[in-house]
């Protein structure tokens, strides 16, 4: 490969992506960072106020709630999502009649518009008229009914379930592509050696899927930190900001309360957290791989 690694070749390969990404994403982030040091309201001339926005964040009780909720959703969904989506990908990798149909069926949650996702899950989770509560009432256990959404505590957990439902097929599709990259020869060799299915999964498939797992975990971290639409449609961050997540809170600060400067400082913080976690994780995992 060294042969082809001329500067000219590298430039040809790198420049288009670099230009687009820098011009649109990075430049915008730089502008956002600039605004995060001002008191910009969306109108008028922004006034430079130094770190005041940032120092304010950590005494903002709603921000802490939002951070807490996001963390719950992130950790819980990671724990559930990864094994589940791997298992589902593994099943979809088995050739059986109707495989394509099952794939499409399980893909529907991902393409359904969030505005309806909210409404549908409202019908399921609503503590009063929802399907879940009606079910508990029907089996004679009304004591099991809680405020799944709209109450003080449980919303992040309910959001996690909706989130898992919505993104499982996203992760399993990526895992499926990873499974496809494993050569069949290896499986054949394993079965010749007399390894059972479970053993094959743990000692052959999973180790070979490390790169795929890195990808999925990185996507899960960054995606979970940015969770917005599900929460917005289910509870709107309410009641009284109790179910706010980082991005829903940032959204309401920026666009409902016109505190653009403060909103941008929140977004920059989300970006930093996300970068530290995802890049830190990838770097670490890669290092372990190459050792």
């Amino acid at each position, binding site marked *: 490969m060294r042969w082809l690694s001329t500067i000219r070749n590298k430039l040809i390969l790198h420049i*288009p992506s670099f230009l687009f990404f820098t011009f649109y994403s990075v430049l915008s982030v730089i502008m956002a960072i600039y605004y995060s040091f001002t008191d910009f309201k969306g109108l008028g001339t922004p006034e430079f106020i130094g770190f005041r926005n940032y120092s304010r964040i950590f005494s903002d009780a709603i921000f802490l709630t939002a951070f807490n909720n996001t963390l719950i959703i992130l950790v819980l969904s990671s724990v559930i999502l990864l094994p589940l989506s791997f298992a589902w990908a593994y099943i979809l990798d088995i050739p059986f009649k109707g495989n394509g149909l099952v794939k499409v069926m399980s893909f*529907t949650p991902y*393409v359904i518009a969030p505005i309806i996702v909210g409404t549908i899950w409202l019908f399921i989770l609503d503590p009063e008229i929802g399907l879940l509560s009606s079910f508990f009432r029907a089996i004679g256990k009304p004591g099991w009914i809680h405020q799944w959404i709209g109450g003080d505590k449980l919303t992040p957990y309910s959001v996690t379930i909706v989130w898992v439902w919505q993104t499982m097929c996203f992760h399993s599709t990526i895992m499926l592509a990873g499974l496809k990259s494993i050569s*069949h020869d290896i499986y054949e060799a394993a079965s010749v050696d007399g390894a059972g299915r479970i053993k094959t999964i743990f000692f052959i498939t999973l180790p070979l899927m490390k790169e795929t797992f890195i990808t999925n975990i990185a996507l899960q971290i960054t995606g979970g930190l940015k969770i917005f639409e599900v929460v917005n449609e289910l509870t709107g961050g309410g009641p009284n900001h109790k179910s706010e997540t980082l991005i829903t809170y940032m959204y309401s600060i920026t666009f409902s309360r016109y505190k653009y400067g403060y909103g941008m400082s929140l977004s920059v913080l989300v970006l930093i957290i996300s970068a530290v976690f995802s890049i830190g994780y990838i770097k670490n995992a890669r290092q372990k791989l190459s050792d």
Partner: protein
Amino acid sequence: MALHRKRFFEKFLFYFLVLGIAFIIMIPFIWTFFLSFKTDSEIFNTPFALPTEWSFKNYRRALETINIFQMYKNTVIIAVSAEVLSLFFTFMSSFAISRMTYKHKAFRNGIYFYYLLGLGIPVYILLYPIYRQNAFMGLIDNLIGLILPHIALTIPFNTLLFVGYFNGFSSEIEEAAIIDGCGLFKMLIKITLPIVKPIIATTAVFNVIYIWNEYPFAATYLNTKDLFTVSLATSMFKSTYSRDYSGMICAVILIMIPELIFYVCLQKYIISGMTAGAVKS
């Protein structure tokens, strides 16, 4: 005989389980489908009952309200041009990141993490600055004003997937091709591309779906009705004090169907790139 029966039972259990799970996952979609035949009052007062009347009234009203085919067309223009360019660019840059040798290793990691930074950018950071850039270039109310940012926005995701996939493969085959005197671009197209086919299909699916459903940019950067994308369809049924839920649900179904068809078409390509050791030489 016993073995046969056991086999059959296993198969039955497998189908029961898989179809059962798929069905449970799909319930909200089926429900949405039923809701699309109900009136607004039925939707909220008897959400679990079947529609009282199976008429296409809601769909007719939805199609009168929105010009869905114009919307399809606009969205396809945006999705295809952004998608093709983005895949092309990131395929090249990811190859360079994963495969090429650099004097300073830090450069490789630097540029890789530079792109990955983009994964964490909340889209609302970009809303105002990109508007400014578009206004500066005269691209407000113009589809190009959406195509170009979408290319940039899909780069981080594509880079993550591509580089991960490249890294999962050894470069043996490519090295062999180089030794045979193959040039860079010939090798990229003839050797590398077929290998990464599954991940290209995967990436294309998610990029297109992302662009298809992208709302904030489309809603803020487009003014002319003739340029509206499908993601704006549902907003046509909302006003401040009223909401036509049944029309909106019909629009949701109309938006979804092409996405599912697209997925059906592309998932066939998420197949093994290395077919039975054919490329082992």
